[in-house]
């Protein structure tokens, strides 16, 4: 038996060189691949953002043509949403879920490999459109017809890239659900699962329900353009507004796909540094389930101004406002967890605290946008840009960064440099507000989004916003340096890493062995 085990262990030891990464079926390797890919896409999408802010630094056209500007905004969104934020969460899930539930690996390791390796092909397709006649798509990530049909040779590349990203996401989601349902250690009941695992199960169900809808609607775009159908062509009996309905039926759950795992991360970090169990564990789970269910009946709040019956406007307004109740439960529970806790403020906790405060600002501006009558003023202004960047940058991205600081010592066996981590935090936390808060003022004053030039009365706050953007972009280089240097060297991290850390993942050595739990662990 010992011989079998030895041979088996050798057989599954990591291969050398490039083959390790190409053919790996190991959840940690694949998690690392996802996170590295996400980092690369963050830099790519970030460089597009720098071009956007450089162009908007002053009124007039400085650096890019209007078409190129619109291509920048479109590609920035596609790369950040599908290339940076979503793969980062999948990477974190790959790394942490098997360790948190006491499993040796993901349930479907070969599918896991395929899920990841579709992504580089998808983004090579998408980014290669910069070199095609007519350049990349410029109609916005929402791809509304008929505008998107102005895209040149890049159009089928865009559609096929989105299909690949969708297939990758759905396969990843299937793997995560199967892993959690079937691979939990004995005694690890559903109501003992860490919140990060819970939020990911619910996110995975959202992915399975929502991503195929996107795939369906972009296939309709493809057949409308090349195969003579008229799904969205009014002249052929179709309806362009129908695209918006179906797109946002995917699009709003997509927003929660990008924020629910962030809720899970914050729910892991806050109790650790408050040295108290999470307040209202079950209510947190029910709140996430409520948010996920409500996400399917709020889509038309993205399109109040396209025209719909008053009853429709009222329904979507009330259902949208209703989401603030479970979200409020979550924020209340995080604050209650900290109440009278033995708090300490290491870097992951700082990012998590910034998340709670700044995501709430994004939530409040979301409430304003969810009110149909006032949305008529905010629609298509910079107020919307400010809102969703508070949700996605200070929400999703801040949680991802918090998670990396939180789990990096476990992954690498090395502690990161706390001083540099705090410098990274304070530079980012200040500059991100300089970047996005003035965009509320610009939007309320009437500055439209998706334009390369603007009236001179918007010049002041745009300059402030751009300065914030440049500092925020540059400060992420500290993060890049910190991660690379921590992987290579640093003080030795203990198994538990953080004094208040609880859970199976912290019982493994730092770094954990190649196969996480070779025998089922004891679940307390």
């Amino acid at each position, binding site marked *: *038996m*010992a011989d*079998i*085990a030895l041979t*088996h*262990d050798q057989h*599954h030891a990591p291969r050398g060189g490039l083959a390790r990464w190409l053919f790996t*079926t190991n959840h940690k390797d694949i998690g690392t691949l996802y996170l590295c890919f996400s980092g690369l896409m963050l830099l790519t999408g970030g460089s597009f953002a720098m071009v956007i802010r450089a162009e908007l630094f002053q009124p007039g056209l400085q650096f890019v043509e209007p078409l190129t500007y619109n291509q920048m905004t479109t590609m920035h969104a596609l790369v950040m949403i599908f290339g940076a934020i979503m793969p980062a969460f999948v990477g974190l899930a790959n790394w942490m879920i098997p360790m948190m539930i006491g499993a*040796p*690996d*993901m*349930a*479907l*390791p*070969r*599918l896991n490999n395929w899920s990841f390796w579709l992504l580089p092909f998808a983004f090579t397709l998408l980014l290669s459109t910069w070199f095609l006649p007519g350049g990349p798509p410029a109609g916005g990530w929402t791809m509304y017809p008929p505008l998107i049909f102005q895209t040149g040779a890049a159009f089928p590349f865009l559609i096929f890239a989105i299909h690949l990203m969708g297939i990758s996401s*759905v396969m990843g*989601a*299937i*793997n995560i*659900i*199967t892993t959690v*349902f*079937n*691979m939990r250690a004995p005694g690890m009941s559903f109501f003992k699962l860490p919140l990060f695992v819970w939020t990911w199960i619910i996110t995975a169900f959202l992915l*399975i*329900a*929502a*991503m*195929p*809808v996107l*795939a*369906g*609607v972009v296939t*309709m775009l493809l057949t409308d353009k090349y195969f003579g159908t008229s*799904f969205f062509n009014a002249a052929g009996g179709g309806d362009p507004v*129908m695209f918006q309905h*179906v797109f946002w039926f995917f699009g709003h759950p997509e927003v929660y796909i990008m924020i629910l795992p962030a809720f899970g991360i914050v729910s892991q970090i806050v109790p650790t540094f408050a040295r108290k169990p999470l307040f209202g564990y079950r209510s947190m789970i029910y709140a996430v389930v409520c948010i996920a269910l409500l996400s399917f009946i709020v889509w038309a709040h993205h399109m109040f101004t396209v025209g719909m019956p008053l009853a429709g406007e009222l329904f979507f307004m009330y259902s949208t406002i209703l989401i603030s109740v479970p979200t409020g439960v979550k924020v209340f529970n995080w604050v209650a967890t900290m109440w009278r806790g033995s708090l300490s403020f290491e870097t992951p906790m700082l990012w998590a605290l910034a998340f709670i405060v700044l995501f709430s600002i994004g939530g409040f501006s979301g409430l304003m946008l969810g009110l149909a009558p006032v949305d008529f003023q905010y629609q298509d202004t910079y107020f919307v840009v400010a809102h969703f960047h508070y949700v996605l940058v200070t929400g999703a991205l801040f949680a991802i960064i918090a998670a990396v600081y939180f789990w990096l010592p476990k992954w690498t066996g090395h502690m990161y440099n706390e001083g540099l981590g705090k410098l990274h935090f304070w530079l980012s936390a200040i500059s991100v507000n300089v970047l996005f808060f003035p965009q509320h003022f610009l939007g309320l004053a009437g500055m439209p989004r998706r334009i390369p030039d603007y009236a001179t009365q918007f010049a002041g706050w745009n300059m402030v916003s751009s300065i914030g953007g440049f500092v925020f972009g540059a400060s992420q280089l500290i993060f890049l340096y910190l991660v690379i240097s921590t992987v290579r060297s640093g003080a030795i991290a203990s198994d538990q890493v953080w004094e208040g850390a609880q859970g199976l993942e912290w019982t493994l050595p730092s770094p954990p062995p190649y*196969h996480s*739990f*070779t*025998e*089922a662990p004891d679940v307390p």
Partner: protein
Amino acid sequence: MNPAAMTPSLDPRRRTNVRTALILAAVALACYLGIYAYYVLLP
């Protein structure tokens, strides 16, 4: 050490895992086709 627990490819739960994955894949396919059905059935 139980070699069957080393990797899911040798895991006795493999059959259950594949069945769960197929059910979920069918749900995803139904959501994809559902959009077309919705469009066709729309008055």
